[in-house]
């Protein structure tokens, strides 16, 4: 194996931010290749700055490198300036660890966390030196795999990717490694057949697709392939304390801090939220393990900031105590004379955010506080099942301002089902109310309102909803901007509605969308997540050329009789549960969090024989979804309780 470093080095003097191509991060490698080992190239299909912090890839990178039969290196999308030089000199996609050509690996595996990276995936496969379409690859060509949230409707990429992994990858990567090693000599059909037989692995080539009316039906055509591919779920996060050696980049990246995942899964049941639907059940990491991962991590990396990550960190059992311990002793000294550790909680529900948490957080550096009411009225929040009351929001915002924050960020969606102009204007009213509360505590209190256009996602109750048109989203944003124009304490930011539409096309697209993605890529449309590179017209033209209509793909409401392109893939949720939840949404009827209330059989636990793992069956402040249910008299709660910290201390 030859390192490409000597070829790359002269190019790095000519490109922007060359440090992103050198590797050498603390925690990296050494990736030792060897005969018989299955070599993985884990690739994030966007720039290094965005991709390096991705926890999913870092976890798999470590797990694979701990195995004796595997080795893993990392790659990221080279920025346009370097890519142009590479293509001119015929240099392929390379790993940043040992600077090996992609072709030296057995598997090129992508993390898919956003639909807008799809064209980059094609570009990287091409840059890796193999055929972009899976059907044109043969023999010992790279196997192209992908996982991550977008894998729950992978059909738009089905023509380009050999296999997808649904759900948690921790166990699946080991099984894929073993299957690849065992069938290495047997040809492509044999390897892919073996992969198709693995739990949680979807091999598109093993299925036939037929369209009839608006229905898309995907059925197995290989004997190894199951009718329905079920996602993978690790029953206990405590068994997987990864990353143990988080990578510390040598150059600036997003989320440049220690990240410790405190739980996976969320059952708040927000109907727009794909992550909350596909990652069930809730699996908390034991608090002691979190403490160890934080203290070891800070010591090893030299970071002074840690993010406690999850889909809703304030829901973690005993969060106040945990944050207090992480920030450090009361005297404000984080040890060795260092200031207190800064803790950031990236996903905060307002009904679980208390003045206690705020008081602990402010002892470190005050990082930004973002709350996500998502909708501007109680009625609409019932529709989307984000059941936080105006009082919850008031209390949370007041907690923040009273502890010295001068600005909070509020996140909203527009284009939600049943939304009226009144709901949209409710966003402005909420923002003004927050500023008013803030002024009681701090001078110059302000609010940043960030508005995203709603994209209906597969495997959620809103998968049947026809997304708002670009024009409608524009109109609503203008309505809001107009209403807030005179208000200097409220800053409004919004996501480009055109990009929202393209996300929507890819989110619920079927296999026919592959031709559109390929077309956009061939027309030069890469890095579509970057507003300066996003090119709406390329997408519209490509849709036209391939005879697909935006109306049918994104704007149309789907019916319950329609077979959806992802019906052969399962996140455990029963389709009739999702449909019922959609009907409840339209009736503005909320649903409790099943972590603290009896099971309503969505399918995620019962189907896989697993259950919630939480340290406390008591809901945090704010109760369960504000539904006013009597939580003092809970029914049988289907959770597995972790040993409490006190008990652990006794033993």
């Amino acid at each position, binding site marked *: 194996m030859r390192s490409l*470093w000597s070829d790359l080095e002269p190019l*790095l*003097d000519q490109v922007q*931010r*060359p*440090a992103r*191509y*050198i*590797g*050498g*991060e*603390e925690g990296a490698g050494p990736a030792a290749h060897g005969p018989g080992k299955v070599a993985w190239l884990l690739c994030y299909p966007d720039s290094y700055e965005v991709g390096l912090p991705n926890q999913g890839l870092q976890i798999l990178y470590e797990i694979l490198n701990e195995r004796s039969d595997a080795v893993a290196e990392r790659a990221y999308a080279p920025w346009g300036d370097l890519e142009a030089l590479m293509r001119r000199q015929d240099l392929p996609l390379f790993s940043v660890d040992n600077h090996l050509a992609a072709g030296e690996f057995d598997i090129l595996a992508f993390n898919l966390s956003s639909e807008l990276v799809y064209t980059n995936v094609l570009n990287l496969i091409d840059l890796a030196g193999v055929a972009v379409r899976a059907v044109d690859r043969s023999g010992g060509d790279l196997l192209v795999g992908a996982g991550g949230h977008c894998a729950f409707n992978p059909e738009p990429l089905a023509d380009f990717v050999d296999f997808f992994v649904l759900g948690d990858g921790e166990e699946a990567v080991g099984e894929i490694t073993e299957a690849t090693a065992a069938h290495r000599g047997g040809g492509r059909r044999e390897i892919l057949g073996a992969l198709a037989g693995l739990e949680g692995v979807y091999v598109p080539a093993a299925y036939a697709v037929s369209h009839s009316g608006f229905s898309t039906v995907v059925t197995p055509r290989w004997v190894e392939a199951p009718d329905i591919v079920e996602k993978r779920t690790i029953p206990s996060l405590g068994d997987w304390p990864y990353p143990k050696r988080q990578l*510390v980049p*040598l*150059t*600036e990246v997003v989320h*440049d801090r220690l990240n410790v995942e405190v739980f996976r899964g969320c059952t708040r049941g927000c109907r727009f939220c794909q992550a909350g639907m596909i990652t069930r059940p809730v699996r908390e990491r034991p608090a002691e393990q979190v403490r160890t991962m934080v203290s070891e991590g800070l*010591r*090893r*990396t*030299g*970071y*002074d900031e840690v993010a406690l990550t999850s889909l809703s960190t304030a829901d973690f059992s005993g969060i106040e105590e945990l944050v207090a311990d992480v920030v450090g002793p009361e005297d404000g000294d984080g040890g*060795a*004379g*260092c*200031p207190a550790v800064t803790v950031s909680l990236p996903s905060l529900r307002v009904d679980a955010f208390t003045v206690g948490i705020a008081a602990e957080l402010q002892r470190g*550096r*005050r990082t930004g506080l973002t709350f996500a009411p998502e909708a501007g009225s109680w009625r609409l929040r019932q529709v989307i099942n984000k059941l936080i009351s105006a009082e919850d929001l008031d209390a949370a915002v007041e907690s923040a301002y009273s502890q010295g924050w001068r600005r909070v960020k509020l996140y909203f969606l527009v284009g939600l089902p049943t939304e009226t102009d009144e709901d949209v204007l409710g966003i402005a009213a909420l923002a003004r109310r927050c500023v008013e509360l803030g002024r009681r505590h701090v001078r110059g209190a302000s609010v940043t309102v960030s508005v995203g256009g709603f994209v209906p996602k597969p495997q959620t109750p809103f998968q049947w909803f026809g997304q708002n048109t670009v024009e409608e989203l524009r109109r609503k944003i203008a309505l809001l901007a107009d209403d807030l124009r005179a208000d200097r304490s409220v800053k409004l930011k919004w996501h480009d509605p055109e990009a929202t539409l393209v996300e929507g096309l890819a989110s619920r697209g079927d296999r026919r969308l592959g031709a559109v993605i390929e077309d956009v890529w061939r027309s030069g449309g890469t890095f579509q997540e970057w507003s300066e590179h996003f090119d709406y017209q390329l997408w519209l033209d490509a849709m036209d050329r391939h005879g697909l209509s935006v109306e049918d793909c994104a704007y149309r409401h789907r019916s319950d009789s329609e077979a959806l392109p992802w019906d052969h893939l399962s996140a455990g949720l029963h389709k009739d549960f999702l449909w019922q939840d959609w009907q409840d949404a339209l009736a503005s009827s909320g649903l409790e969090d099943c972590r603290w209330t009896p099971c309503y059989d969505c399918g995620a636990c019962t189907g896989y024989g697993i259950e919630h793992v939480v340290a406390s069956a008591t809901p945090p402040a704010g109760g369960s979804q504000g539904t006013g249910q009597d939580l003092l008299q809970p029914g049988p709660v289907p959770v597995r309780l972790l040993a409490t910290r006190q008990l652990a201390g006794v033993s």
Partner: protein
Amino acid sequence: MRVRLRWSKQGKIRFCGHRDAARIWERAVRRAGLPVAYSQGFSPRPRISFGLALATGQESVAEYLDVDLRASAEELYDWAAGMPERLSAVLPDGMAVSDACPLRPGAVSLQEAVTSCTWEFALTGTDTTPAAAWAEQVRSADSLPLQRERKGRTTTSDVRTAVGDLHILDVSVGGVLVAELGTKPRAVRPAEFLRLIAPPLAVGRVRRLHQWITRDGERYEPLAPEAGALAPGGDMLAAASIDAVPAAQQEVCA
């Protein structure tokens, strides 16, 4: 109390910029467990003062920085003595600390004190004859006009006095051009130097070999006693003036 370090940046890590290096240093002093002092305010940071920035892509065996420690004068010598090893162990590949000395209180900052740097330019052409001729041309020139752009305005200034000794070292492959370039009042950057009188040079890697403080016609390294560094065994308080440092000890850190 302040300690001055000499460190190097070579190999792949040369592609990290000045700001990247600053972040790497902040994490390194924490990982090394040094009792580093922090700035006040909303966002306390370790108190580290960097010297002249090194451009992204350039190497150096003579970078310097000053770090403030919360330690008594007596402890300071021990901390300083252990720093090359402690810090090199936690710095990434290609970065290492070669020396560290406590600094006399009130010593002039690196930015202010350093007057010139010695640079090495790897010549990638096979024939060094034109380079040697060019060096001679620069050496004997009465004036060296340099066009520079700043804030959208192009100015021309004579940098003759800022370009000091330069010579070609013949080594087996290609050759190496070594030149001393002044930093006052405005530094002549390596890239600017290479534009002087249209040189026939193919230059590869650029490396900083030395930083110099010139005072009263004498040249000192920033870790020399004359620059404020205190030799081991010196009495911090007695050392309020450099004359108090015994001559025999002055060489230890130099």
